[in-house]
């Protein structure tokens, strides 16, 4: 008798066979699950894709080159409902970021860490020491990548109006923060000095530029002063040169350095002029098809004059910078301004695109002889309204291999005071500056992420309605019970 025919031996073989089958089966299922956990798809069935990220965010997430950490503190059990509500919204949104930032290997480029500061002392310590969070702060959200980090405040995520919180703009806040911290080769913004310009460290309400500087610092922009008489050319790391309200003329060599920066280095420049002061940039402006002559824009209609003689400008043209202002009929507060208009005498240049940004009202005019009183519109010398107050001139550097290479951008405002410390937070001035900076630095895709309307579900049910509903809900079990009784009765028969 062979060994295979022995009963006990065959039983062992059978057992081992079963065990191997189980192990193989488990390995197969584990492998399938492993693959599935790294390669998956999500479909949002809700109306307006309420839980999906916007196309802009998705496009940006695809470009992330280095890992991003998002640290969120979890609210304690005793936290008020509002805090837990914020946490729920944030964690839902961050889950989408985490899932959408998967690379081909399935690993997520965005790692969201939830920290219980009472139980994870090492993480709490890191928040205080590395990210400078005050230890008693609740609801902390930090976005970090490499050495760069940014804290998101709950206020950044909520849009409020008179009725309270109206929309959740967490996506905008997170995407901008991720953009800020991952942008390793972020370029520096230079503030031109040497001609009595508004200074970035000046807190003066009228001539100070410290609010703008703080705004830029908060968004991780590096800022440096620039004196063109001391350097041979505009530094290479310049992302933008801001010339804010020069009191005296720029000298021809300075103008030439700026001209080269704009034309040869495809540079970006924001010029805020002041009426009454010569700027000395006429030749440069001529190259870029812009003209800002020595005139003052005067408003005749009371409708557009705010207190203290400032004008309210609400006449915007269609442009990415002004889109939100135009759509929402917002206005900006502008002090005395000089006209900034297209230079009709400039040579025709097809690579140049010139767009006015905003204009005064049709009842205004630009006065040339503004020192002679009384000020009156003179058809021969003055310009009739509406007068353009800001111009954008953009040069495309040509398209090679099907790629449209972005060229230089020059934005000229006829007024510098609108971004001074006291006017920057007024009206929609900050919004205009925000859009302007993002557009000029080619980050304008982020400008358009729409805040999400808060969905609130509430039923208007009275106690009686609830009792009626409860009774109606009994219909179903009642019907099933009846069916059961009928079937039992039929079977008995």
């Amino acid at each position, binding site marked *: 008798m062979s060994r295979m025919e022995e009963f006990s031996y065959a039983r062992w073989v*059978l*057992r081992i066979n*079963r065990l191997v*089958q*189980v192990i193989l*089966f*488990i390995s197969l*299922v584990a492998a*399938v*699950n492993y693959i*599935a*956990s790294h390669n*998956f*798809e*999500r*479909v*949002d*069935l*809700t*109306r307006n894709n*309420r*839980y*999906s990220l916007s196309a802009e965010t998705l496009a940006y997430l695809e470009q992330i080159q280095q890992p991003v950490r998002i640290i969120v503190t979890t609210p304690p059990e005793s936290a008020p409902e509002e805090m837990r*509500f914020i946490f*729920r*919204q944030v964690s839902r949104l961050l889950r989408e970021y985490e899932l959408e930032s998967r690379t081909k290997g399935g690993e997520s480029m965005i790692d969201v860490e939830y920290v219980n500061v009472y*139980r*994870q*002392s*090492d993480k709490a310590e890191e928040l205080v020491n590395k990210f400078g969070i005050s230890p008693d702060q609740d609801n902390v959200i930090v976005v970090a990548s490499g050495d760069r980090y940014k804290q998101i405040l709950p206020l950044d995520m909520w849009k409020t109006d008179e009725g309270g919180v109206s929309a959740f703009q967490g996506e905008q806040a997170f995407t901008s923060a991720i953009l800020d911290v991952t942008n390793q080769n972020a370029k520096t913004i230079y503030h031109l000095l040497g001609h009595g310009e508004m200074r970035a460290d000046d807190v003066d309400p009228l001539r100070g530029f410290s609010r703008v500087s703080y705004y830029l610092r908060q968004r991780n922009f590096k800022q440096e002063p620039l004196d063109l008489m001391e350097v041979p050319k505009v530094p290479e790391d310049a992302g933008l040169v801001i010339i804010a309200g020069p009191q005296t003329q720029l000298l021809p060599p300075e103008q030439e350095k700026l001209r080269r920066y704009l034309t040869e280095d495809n540079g970006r420049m924001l010029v805020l002029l002041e009426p009454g002061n010569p700027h000395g940039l006429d030749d440069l402006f001529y190259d870029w098809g812009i003209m800002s002559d020595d005139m003052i824009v005067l408003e005749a209609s009371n409708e557009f004059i705010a207190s203290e003689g400032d004008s309210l400008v609400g006449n915007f043209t269609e442009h990415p910078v002004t889109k939100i202002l135009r759509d929402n009929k917002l206005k900006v507060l502008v002090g005395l301004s000089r006209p900034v208009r297209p230079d009709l005498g400039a040579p025709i240049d097809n690579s140049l695109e010139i767009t006015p940004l905003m204009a005064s009202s049709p009842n205004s005019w630009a006065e040339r002889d503004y020192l002679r009183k009384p000020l009156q519109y003179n058809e021969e010398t003055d310009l009739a309204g509406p007068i353009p107050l800001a111009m954008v001139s953009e040069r495309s550097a040509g398209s090679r291999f099907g790629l449209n290479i972005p060229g230089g951008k020059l934005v000229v405002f006829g007024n510098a005071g609108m971004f001074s410390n006291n006017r920057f937070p007024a009206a929609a001035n900050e919004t205009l500056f925000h859009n302007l900076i993002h557009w000029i630095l080619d980050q304008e895709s982020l400008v358009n992420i729409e805040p999400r309307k*808060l*969905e*609130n*579900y*509430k*039923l*208007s*049910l009275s106690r009686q*309605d*609830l009792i*009626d*509903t*409860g009774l*109606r*809900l*009994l*219909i*179903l*079990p009642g019907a*099933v*019970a009846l*069916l*059961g*009784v009928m*079937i*039992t009765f039929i*079977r008995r028969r």
Partner: protein
Amino acid sequence: MRHFLTLFSHELRMLLIAPATYVASVLFLLLMGLIYLLVLNEAGAREADLPPSVLFFQVFWIPVFFMVPLLTMRSIAEERRLGTLETLMTTPATAIQVVLSKFLGAYVFYLMLWGLTICFPFIVAYGLPGTADRAVVLELAPMLGGYLFVALSGALYIALGIFASSLTRSQLVAGMLSFSMLFIIIISGQLLLRLPIQDYSWMTWLESPLEYIRTFKHLEDFSRGVIDSRPFVLYLSNAALLLGITTLVVESKA
């Protein structure tokens, strides 16, 4: 296939004519109706950021914990206790056909019970005066996702119950076993985070597998109307695994 159909139709027929089925259904619907009413009461009392149907599915584990063991504990354990499993195995029907017919019988009943609860929002909506309220109660995406999740996870839970039932001759033991296993797979991921551990850093390697199996995360996605492909693989492949192992157990013990 023919044998499987015979076995399956027998299972269904027994299910449909047994008074116990109707008693269980009525009790289930009364409980679910009560839960639904409480959810509506909550939605009427204060504003919530989620529609009532999402809140309704958040308590899906209550019926699962008692329904699944009750539905499955009898299936194979009873056959073994009575000795009918051996008889069944002498027929041309194979072990896998027996296991599948038991599984599908219980699963169809499970789906049927949950399916009946779809009537709740409709019954409520058509009794409500305001159309705005009606839209809140009848939001489609969360309902679709929620029921899809119940159907998917149900496949695993029922397979687990059938597996527990194949391990023992005692219905009681089978019921307790399946309850314990359900408790572990549904709640454990959630509970792990609440353990009184000072430092979690040594557990970080567990993070990603735990995230993958966390039932409530998947439920949250589905019940909001976001359909994810991972739970499909997770629940269906593991259900297949459990049914495969059950077949081997039945083969070895019959």
